């Protein structure tokens, strides 16, 4: 059809043509338009995480920290690796990038050796929490009823114990060292994870899609693998990401009190503790570097955890 004068449909009274009063031709666009491409849950969550600048900053920092923990001690200048007693308490220099301590050891090298211990403690604590917590909480939630009742009573009592006090007590009793710390951190640390997993499992167990697969006679193991695990994975990952910094903090706290990592090994906490007597004399680098990297690590894990929480929350999905 032809529109002789204009196609303009502006708001001033346009010319209305008689031939427009005819039934409209069917237009494909009008019928049930806009179908969004379906994106899988994990892909969608990943895209949301990528958009979160702070969380990405945290992730990048963590990757760098891990790389430095792995290769930091290797890339230090060779001359810095031998301990020379005369070089004690040197400020940062071309040779000793982060200065030296009272025994003439290179702070740069020790910082990254400390990073290995801090990160190891954090990751191990999170892994043990994961294994015990998911198993315990999963069984309690899935079995339900009496089993659940008694299992959760026990958890509640443990939950009432003051975490760091128990950790201190265990650390005092055990031979001081890396594995004692990890044991002390895990002995009640899994309780939070168990509570969370149990809650999730209880909730998901009653969803229609789980009931549906039960009516089809699906095996329990398959229901756990295919239905329960994928749906609880989000909160579990978030919880683990937030466990790591609290474990790193607890280790630093113990080491700072002198019941954590013992010499000659170093962790960021023990390095900060060793630096305490010398800060009054102005040897700032002794404290600054371990302190900075503890804070950076805690910051990175915390913002990444927050970002993951936002990204993995299905309620926010649009």
């Amino acid at each position: 059809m032809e529109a002789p004068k204009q196609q303009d449909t502006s708001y001033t009274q346009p010319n209305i043509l008689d031939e427009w009063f005819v039934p409209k031709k069917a237009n494909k666009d009008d019928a049930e338009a806009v179908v969004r491409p379906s994106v899988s849950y994990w892909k969608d969550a990943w895209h949301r995480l990528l958009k979160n600048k702070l969380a990405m900053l945290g992730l990048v920092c963590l990757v760098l920290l891990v790389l430095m923990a792995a290769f930091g001690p290797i890339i230090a200048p060779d001359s810095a690796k031998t301990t020379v007693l005369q070089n004690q308490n040197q400020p940062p220099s071309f040779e000793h990038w982060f200065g030296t301590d009272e025994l003439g050891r290179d702070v740069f090298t020790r910082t990254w050796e400390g990073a290995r211990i801090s990160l190891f403690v954090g990751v191990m604590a999170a892994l043990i929490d994961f294994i015990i917590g998911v198993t315990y909480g999963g069984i309690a939630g899935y079995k339900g009823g009496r089993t659940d009742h008694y299992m959760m009573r026990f958890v509640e009592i443990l939950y009432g114990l003051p975490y760091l006090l128990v950790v201190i007590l265990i650390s005092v009793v055990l031979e001081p060292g890396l594995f004692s710390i990890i044991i002390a951190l895990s002995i009640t640390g899994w309780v939070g994870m168990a509570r969370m997993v149990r809650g999730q499992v209880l909730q998901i167990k009653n969803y229609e899609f789980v009931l549906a697969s039960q009516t089809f006679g699906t095996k329990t193991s398959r229901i756990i693998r295919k239905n329960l695990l994928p749906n609880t994975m989000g909160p579990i990952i978030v919880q683990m990401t937030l466990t790591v910094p609290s474990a790193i903090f607890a280790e630093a706290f113990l080491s700072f009190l002198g019941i954590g990592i013992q010499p000659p090994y170093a962790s960021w906490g023990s390095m900060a503790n060793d630096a305490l007597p010398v800060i009054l004399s102005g040897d700032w680098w002794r404290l600054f570097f371990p302190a900075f990297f503890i804070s950076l690590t805690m910051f990175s894990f915390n913002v990444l955890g927050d970002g993951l929480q936002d990204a993995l929350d299905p309620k926010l999905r649009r």
Partner: protein
Amino acid sequence: MATYLIKRFFAMIVTLWLIITLTFFLMHALPGSPFNDERNTSEAVQKNLIAHFNLDQPVSVQYIEYLKSIVQFDFGPSIKKSSQTVNDLLGRGFPVSFELGMVTLVVAILSGILLGVLAALKHNGVIDYLAMTIAVLGISVPNFVLATLLIQQVAVNWELLPVATWKSWRHMVLPTLALATGPMAIIARLTRSSMLEVLTQDYILTAKAKGLTPFKIVFKHALKNALLPVVTVLGALAAGILTGTFVIEKIFAIPGMGKYFVDSINNRDYPVIMGTTIFYSALLIFLLFLVDVAYGILDPRIKLHKKEGR
């Protein structure tokens, strides 16, 4: 409410008993501890120990007697100084630690709530970003790091405030600041997110539709609801502050309970470790109980579940 309180009280006693038992048997299982080994203690101390812990009796009797003495608030002797008991240490150190802890708690709660509310009201504004930056930093920087940095900058470099000890209000500023920043950050974040959620609730719209002033809407209708989740974390925060006093008192050489506790750990003064751990646990568990009671008072819905149950 009454049955709920009784239940909670009972759970509190069980937890406490568990802590005492755990501590008792851990200390006795320890090789080289004075409970098994008499070599590294002086004679006077040894007598004290045998008398107080009934070491000449079988373990079961020792345990019962120990429970009895704890119930009577008798935490036993020190093995490093024969003339001193844990009760002496508590009497001297606890008031100082209590002062530090309370001031910190008040500062953290007030500033945290203020920061959180401001951030929520100016959502996505400059104040919001500033408040949340402070909050993230506060959570990321451990208190002992903050404490040492503060000493180095404020006390040593700028010479504004004293480096250590606990004498006047000027001595209190840095320790309180170092200890309060972490809990403040947690409260600020929680208050903010909870406030943001509450502000979208229908009853806020109802309050607006009544023509109330923004001030009344925020402080009468929103804040109380927004603070309910904050109350639930107060117990954990108190625990954090309490353990925080260990390092803060050590760093600032404050003669509080925390410092004695750390010293006793480093000296392996086992009866003191044991007594102090139990004392602290009791304190914290009691605080958690108080928080639960407070929550029940603040949220009228809790009461109902127990009383009228509709």
